[in-house]
């Protein structure tokens, strides 16, 4: 019982991080603050990964998202410095955006409720017990196993390479 409470407590804490950070990102007028809210949100997601017994993904989340992607975003914000202090208002269609988001959320929750109630619920309430944090080796093998994900893995690395070259070509100044 107590262990359950502890889990709910940690879950709630990270949920507050994720949702609070998300709302901050979406609504903050100051672009730099948006990026900081985004960090909080991403940190909460890393916490979720730990809760879900995927410590590798949690570490990668902090390393790649917070350490690289957000730093890159902040760098871009600083490079477009003239607009940094700009108080930005949402655009004219924000009300439709809000409605659309609420409707989408409603539909998803409805789907979840339908799927998890009734005589034969589709969604389990118990995790698979055999999976523990020691699945790291399996993940490593899965990514290079010919029968599993080696082709997507190589394609992903090519994509990264292409993106890097593309970014440099786009952003470099004309000579």
């Amino acid at each position, binding site marked *: 019982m107590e262990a359950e409470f*502890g889990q709910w407590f940690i879950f709630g804490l990270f949920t507050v991080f994720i949702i609070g950070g998300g709302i901050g990102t979406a609504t903050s007028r100051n672009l730099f603050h948006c990026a900081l809210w985004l960090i909080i949100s991403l940190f909460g997601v890393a916490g979720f990964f730990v809760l879900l017994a995927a*410590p590798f993904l949690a570490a990668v989340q*902090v390393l790649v998202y*917070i350490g690289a992607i957000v730093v890159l975003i902040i760098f871009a914000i600083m490079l477009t410095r003239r607009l940094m202090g700009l108080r930005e208002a949402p655009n004219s269609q924000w009300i439709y955006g809000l409605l659309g988001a609420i409707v989408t959320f409603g539909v998803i929750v409805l789907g979840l409720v339908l799927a998890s109630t009734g005589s034969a619920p589709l969604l389990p309430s118990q995790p698979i017990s055999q999976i523990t944090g020691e699945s790291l080796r399996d993940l490593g093998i899965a990514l290079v196993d010919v029968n599993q994900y080696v082709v997507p893995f190589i394609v992903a690395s090519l994509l990264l390479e292409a993106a890097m070259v593309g970014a440099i070509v786009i952003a470099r100044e004309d000579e």
Partner: protein
Amino acid sequence: MAEFLINSGWNATLAQIVASALGAVVLSSFGLVWIIFSIWLERKFAGRVQDRIGPNRTGPYGLFQTFADLGKLLTKEDITPVGADKHVYNFAPILAVAGILAIFAVIPFNHAWIGADLNVGVLYFVAVGSLATLAILLAGWSSNNKYALLGAFRAIAALVSYEVPMILSLAVPVMLAGSMSMQDIVKGQSIAYIFVVPVSALIFFISQLAEVGRSPFDLIEAESEIIAGFNIEYSGMKFAMFYAAEFIHAFVICILTAVLFLGGWRGLGAGEPGYELFGFFMLMAKSVAVYALVMLVRSTLPRIRIDHMMAFNWKFLVPLSIVNLLVVMFLARPFVPDYAAAEALVAQGGLAGLIGAIFGAGFIAELPRAVVLLVANVIMFIVATQLLHRYGEAQRAKLGMRSVQPVRAAAMASD
């Protein structure tokens, strides 16, 4: 600890939480207390190197100098500049210290003392280290000061670039040990990795120096160029936190180098059970030895220019670390140590038995791989330094300066 509390009638969950919290407090206070000593050590050392005496007024040998400084910093006015982003400005120093202290969680002080033996330990400390980068960014931006922003720009550009060779060289011990857990990496070092892959150790050390912003890479806070950079607006205790973070980080990189490449708590029988405390002192001794090197570099080398720093990284360190990774990858695979076979060999006696008795069976198991990799590393090192030398000569020729070679030849001739 947790067991003791449970035995004395505590609730199991609560005992676990209390024990973890206490462990965290002990670990982080160890880091904080250590810097009081290490600041004194560094000043004294730099003083000696530069033919000065160093602090010698407060207490015996100036040992209490740090406390005096602390008192001074505590009584200074705590300023938040007008126009600064208040919350971010106040949060940045905390993040800087917390990010560094969090690294202590995965450092194995001996075979039992480790905060959390994560199976992604190496990745964890790289990830946590990137939080320190973030702290610098926040400080630089929120100060509302041009120099602070410039300093933050420099810092981020440098830190992000030097993370590339650092991670590439980190992959080598991970590959050799076959694990990302810090404890497993230490256990895999019957032969310390510095004797197996010295090139990786060197790249790791250099990129970590850059990560801390120590001389010769201290242009993040170059006083003469950008008047201290990102922390220019900070005063009093907030400045002290940045200062402390820098010193802890400097020592943490020494501990990490010791753990990853110098065999951690192993050596002189420290690995045997019953010598827990000795393992801790072994690690500390190794770390302080590395720290001496850091201090020596700091007090002797001049600051390099930012474009040189970036060029050195992207044109030399990154290609070298990629080549190094590939070489180790292909050469280490056929020589994966077979500990069971080595034990059997030692049990047979003879020469193997003798060596096994002195160095342990793991030494024999890792010997073939170590020899092969060491030879490859030495070749790689010679080629790399030759390339650097050629490049330097070409640069000198372009600038119309005299080559080093004739000078050296002339010096030899005159002898």
